[in-house]
């Protein structure tokens, strides 16, 4: 080993932050940058753990004042009832303002057509982007993490979208130091990802540390499910089970919360945060690989959806 100067190895300074403190501090910085530079920011809130952590961070960032953002939920019409109940509870508890963009309304109005495969997740893009235009949101917080997917690994923390909400990965601004560039033309907006550098495990450890309340479906419970494409799906009016598919009662939990048509449950007996964290740490599958049908459509499924305006 050649060392130009001597340093003490193996000892972190007493001023070193824990990884959770470092990630929290960075995310809060991002929230405050947006509050300082944009006119009409909004937090995408699905009732999933990442958006719940985002909201928790926003509450801490501006305390004791209120969060200076409203929430936007893209309701696919196939959401888990427990998650909608959680959403409404949180909104009431913190006195927040909630906007809902409804996929069902778009379908009923004939502006969107149901897909043959029944997936509604891809249909979210139109209500989302039109909702952004309608409310003239100029910064849209998303809970996306770079560890989720290889196209997301290429995403900036501040991601400029054109007036059609499109992402062009080849025209991204270099992101230097912590100097986020939020400049945009009228009609354009910036997607902001405060959890970019968090992993699934970080999110769960943070939830445990901060004692953040979650929808019950994240914890093991008895549930009627049936198998499709290797995933345990919840039966419902959304289109399952088919005649060839059999419903059974299993002990399961959800690793991600999305649309019922594309979000699978995993077999689990983890009923506590501790048990969930142990399970995640030992898992051989990514959360998306384990439970999301929409990412399995093609090798570039996420990139293609992001280009169209998905978050």
């Amino acid at each position, binding site marked *: 080993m050649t060392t130009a100067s001597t340093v*003490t190895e193996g000892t*972190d300074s007493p001023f070193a*932050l824990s990884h959770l403190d470092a990630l929290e501090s960075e995310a809060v*910085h991002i929230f405050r940058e947006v509050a300082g530079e944009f006119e009409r920011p909004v937090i995408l809130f699905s009732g999933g753990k990442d958006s719940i952590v985002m909201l928790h961070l926003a509450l801490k960032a501006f305390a*004791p004042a209120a969060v200076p953002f409203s929430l936007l939920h893209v309701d696919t019409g196939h959401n888990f009832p427990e998650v909608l109940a959680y959403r409404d509870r949180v909104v009431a508890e913190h006195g927040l303002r909630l906007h809902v963009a409804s996929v069902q309304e778009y379908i009923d109005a004939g502006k969107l057509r149901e897909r043959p495969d029944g997936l509604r997740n891809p249909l979210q893009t139109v209500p989302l982007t039109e909702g952004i235009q309608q409310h003239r949101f100029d910064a849209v917080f998303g809970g996306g993490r770079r560890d989720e997917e290889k196209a997301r690994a290429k995403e900036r923390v501040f991601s400029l979208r054109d007036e059609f909400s499109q992402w062009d990965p080849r025209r991204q601004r270099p992101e230097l130091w912590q100097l986020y*560039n939020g400049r945009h033309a009228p009609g354009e907006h910036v997607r902001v990802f405060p959890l970019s550098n968090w992993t699934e495990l970080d999110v769960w450890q943070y939830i445990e540390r901060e004692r953040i309340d979650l929808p019950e479906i994240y914890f093991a419970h008895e549930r009627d499910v049936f198998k499709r494409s290797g995933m345990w799906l919840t039966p419902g009016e959304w289109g399952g089970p088919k005649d060839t598919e059999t419903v059974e009662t299993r002990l399961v939990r959800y690793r991600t919360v999305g649309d019922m048509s594309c979000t699978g449950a995993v077999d689990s007996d983890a009923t506590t945060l501790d048990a969930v964290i142990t399970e995640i740490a030992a898992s*051989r599958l990514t959360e998306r*690989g384990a439970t999301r049908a929409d990412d399995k459509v093609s090798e570039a499924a996420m990139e293609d959806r992001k280009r169209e305006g998905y978050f």
Partner: protein
Amino acid sequence: MTTSTDRPADQLSATTLLRFATAGSVDDGKSTLVGRLLHDSKSIFTDQLEAVEQASISRGQETPDLALLTDGLRAEREQGITIDVAYRYFATPRRRFILADTPGHVQYTRNMVTGASTAELAVVLVDARNGVVEQTRRHAAVAALLRVPHVVLAVNKMDLVDYAEPVFAAIAEEFTAYAASLGVPEITAIPISALAGDNVVEPSAHMDWYGGPTVLEHLETVPSSHDLTGCKARFPVQYVIRPQTAEHPDYRGYAGQIASGALRVGEAVTVLPSGRTSTIAGIDVLGQSADIAWAPQSVTVRLTDDLDISRGDLIAPTEHAPVPTQDVLATVCHVADSALSVGQRVLLKHTTRTVKAIVKDIPSRLTLDDLSQHPAPGRLVANDIGRVVIRTAEPLALDAYADSRRTGSFLLIDPADGTTLAAGMAGDAFAVTAQTASETVEAAQEETGWDF
């Protein structure tokens, strides 16, 4: 490569976070090193590996192509090249890592600058058969310019030089001398074979003569934050928190992330650029009241006096307050496709403050290969590094980049369309000026430009 992907449960005990960047051209084996680090630290999941195996087979490849793990864009996979920086995450029982995986050959300098700007450590890869080449010197120069605190020289492909110590020693000596001349504070050279796995995660059985750490061991033990005693405190105000509620009628807090040093309750502070003074009445670290807080904590500071303070102001200890200036001498790395010219009007973003500015002069352009300066280039184009003189419309509380990467750095932005034009570093370019840096090259050679 095996398909074992057991992830150790003891990674839950990981405590600190290290951000590092890799630099190396494609043939140096960077993808293999990244793949090896992720794989041997058990950070690759079964479904990711299966996806790579399937994609590799469908392309007619016999073995899984680990580069497919990191090439996240359609265009990258189609062309088999890495276009953009990607961020990777992995953990060991001792630490969590954020890896900025910077591409080796397309748009090279701006990508490495992007990755290095937030890195505490840079891994520079060298092919043991080729030794220190121009590309290596560019990597070292960018790391020095960005003042990345720790540099690792990974001498790769040792298996192809019979694991010979003299080969490694010669390369390590040449690189260390060069990097030290640029002021790189700490250099660690490690002989590895990313392909065979020597000294990446596991110690090599082929190089008894090497007594140092493996790459991963070094990443786990290098200090992740610096001694604060030498750093002056800097607190850019991001946002003013004023609830004006019945519960908090008079609360006025200045929210921000401490850029450097530490702040203490009771400390006399000056607010810049106004120069008004006050005392720190309280510090809230995201819900916890504290007597002291330090970089990079996000906090809310309250002062004893109700001053007119807004986003863009800087709070600093009165005895170490910076002197605001409107004349900035800096080194910039030009990152946009459109050029930067003398006389151009730009926006300058420094910490939380964005001001109008004009490029008064571009005295020189640097060639990273030999650190020579081309005088008065008139303009800078993509990937150029040059000295600039900038006049700002309002005073900035700017530090030298050598003293603070956070308060010495800035962006130049195109006011017309918001494009990020350049990454700026105030003050001297290198900690130690290399002998060659003062030499100028004939103007006639300028036209050859850069060869990436």
